[in-house]
């Protein structure tokens, strides 16, 4: 069971294959997440799907998958910018829901506000058709883990 993710992380280090990391995370597959790196900017996308709907009357995406998209975008950004060879562990996540999210492509981009040796603070924004009108934002803390260090 351990092989796909470890291989995916090695492939990421070698060639920047974020999609392979996502496909090694079952819940990211369940959400249908995709990631694209353009220049120095990594964008994670959650395509619309019926099972992501929380309120079928509006209709609007459920807040949970949006939180998961934000959290996953933060994880990918940490994998990109740090040397960690395991998935960083979330300590806490504060999600602000700014607008009702339509059932369309939702994009997320993360920014590492501060990262020390053990903890990173990452801010993430999600938007849909207009990047100037975010649908949600998150403030997150992650514990950075390295396989090189033992005893954690």
């Amino acid at each position, binding site marked *: *069971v*351990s092989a*796909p*993710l*470890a291989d995916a992380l090695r492939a990421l280090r070698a060639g920047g294959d974020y999609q392979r990391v996502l496909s*090694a*995370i*079952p*819940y*990211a*597959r*369940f*959400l249908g997440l995709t990631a694209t790196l353009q220049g120095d900017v990594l964008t994670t996308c959650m395509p619309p799907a*019926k*099972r*992501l*709907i*929380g*309120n*079928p*009357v*509006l209709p609007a*995406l*459920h*807040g*949970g*998958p949006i*939180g*998961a*998209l934000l*959290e*996953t975008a933060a994880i990918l950004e940490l994998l990109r910018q740090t040397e960690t060879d*395991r*998935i960083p*562990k*979330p*300590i*806490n*996540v*504060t*999600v*602000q*829901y700014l607008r*009702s999210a339509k059932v369309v492509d939702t994009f997320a981009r993360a920014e590492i506000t501060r990262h020390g040796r053990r903890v990173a603070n990452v801010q993430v924004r999600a938007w849909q058709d207009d990047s100037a009108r975010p649908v949600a934002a998150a403030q997150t803390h992650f514990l950075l883990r390295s396989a090189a260090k033992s005893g954690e």
Partner: protein
Amino acid sequence: VLDRAFKALVKKMIAGGSPHMRALGMQIVTLEDQHCVARIDYDPQLVGDAMAGVLHGGVVTSLLDSVGGIAVMAAVGMRQSLATLDLRIDYLRASTPHEPLLADVACTRLTREVAFTSGRAYNGDRDDPVATMAATYMLGTKRLPHALGGSKS
């Protein structure tokens, strides 16, 4: 006291109305005046770290957000269109692989516009939580048709 019709409505909402709650396999355990407990069974599709078999943090978020919304509706006494304003989750420990995840959320204060909630997610033992949460919801963001229980008149 909540009437049986309301409980049935919430169960129906989960079963038929909210595709994401259904996709997670969410089931109501108890539903009281301002308080809801629900569970999801362990599902390999919901795992974040395949090495450890631990549920993804987003699953914990989804469950707590949903159960919080139901606790607010229970406090209001009818189905309401809600919007989560803000949700904070502290991940206290990894969810135990192969065990169901429960969430227990109470609406701690209800005003005309805003509802405040707090809760926790856990496996077998409520006193050993996987995560704690605090969330606020805006009430009555959209009027619902009578058929969905949004209005009694």
